[in-house]
């Protein structure tokens, strides 16, 4: 059971809603993934196209809890204003807080992130910050009131998987009581399983499913991988070792002559 700010979920997969080939494929992928939380955004609404009104109806049909993001915001001020607009529009105190530092890497601006998180937490938001594996930033986000942290695995949309596995392991070790969700950079179900094997609480992804040749089948693959990784963590993985260790009993091996005696 995944618990985020007092709300409980069976699925540990949080799914983005962008980049699918069609609204119908999005709906089917959400269903196949069994995700109970989907991320959404806010964008400028054209009086002519009114694209947001149709998307709102689609969101309602999904029946999931929505997690609005502040994607594209470059300053704490922009992120705070966007979060407030999202709270009114989606009727949720949740916000996936993004303050972006660089267009090429889409890496978080950790200084702006901490500043915005402190303001939003003080105003009653429940903040899920998109961060890095940086321990100092994590400490400041937790001090600002965040009980969930969402470090990247790799740059958004890069599909590179866990580029700093040791950093993610250290974050898990330092913050055993904070909910940790890897957000961004996941490309394959094996990456997601690896995250879960580290003891992370969940995985948030979008592109790896939406841009797959068959998004619905890939959604199912990720659901299985995340469940498998979590089960493996709970079961307790064995430690790797340098040399071989026979799995078949050595005692009684035919033709074996004990040279030591």
């Amino acid at each position: 059971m995944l618990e985020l700010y007092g709300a409980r979920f069976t699925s540990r997969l949080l799914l983005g809603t962008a980049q699918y080939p069609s609204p119908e494929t999005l709906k089917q992928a959400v269903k196949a993934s069994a995700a109970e939380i989907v991320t959404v955004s806010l964008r400028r609404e054209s009086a002519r196209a009114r694209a947001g009104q149709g998307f709102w109806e689609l969101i309602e049909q999904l029946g999931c809890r929505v997690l609005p993001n502040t994607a594209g915001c470059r300053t704490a001020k922009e992120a705070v204003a966007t979060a407030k607009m999202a709270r009114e529009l989606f009727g949720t105190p949740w916000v996936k807080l993004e303050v972006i530092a660089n267009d090429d890497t889409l890496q978080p601006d950790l200084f702006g992130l901490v500043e915005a998180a402190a303001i939003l937490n003080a105003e009653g938001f429940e903040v899920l910050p998109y961060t890095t594996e940086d321990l100092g930033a994590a400490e400041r986000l937790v001090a600002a009131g965040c009980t969930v942290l969402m470090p990247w695995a790799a740059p958004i949309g890069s599909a590179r998987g866990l580029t700093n596995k040791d950093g993610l392991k250290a974050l898990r070790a330092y913050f055993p009581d904070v909910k940790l969700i890897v957000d961004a950079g996941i490309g394959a179900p094996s990456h997601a399983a690896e995250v879960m094997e580290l003891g992370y609480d969940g995985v948030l992804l979008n592109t790896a499913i939406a841009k797959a040749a068959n998004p619905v089948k890939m959604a199912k693959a990720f659901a299985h991988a995340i469940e498998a990784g979590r089960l493996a963590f709970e079961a307790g993985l064995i430690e790797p070792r340098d040399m071989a260790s026979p799995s078949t009993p050595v005692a009684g091996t035919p033709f074996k002559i004990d040279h030591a005696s």
Partner: protein
Amino acid sequence: MQILLNGEPVVTQARDLDELCASLGFTGARIATAVNGSFVSAGRRATTSLAPADTIEIVAPRQGG
């Protein structure tokens, strides 16, 4: 007066934010608003006067990652 609406220069007769939204056909629509970088709640639109060169954002739900 001329304002900047969603990044585009627009001439409007609207005196406040509520009038502006209505003039664009957004009455009852799922939108949220900001003026000069700060959030303005739906309840405060009618009492938020517009001034020349104001920067207005009108946003709606959209797909996101």
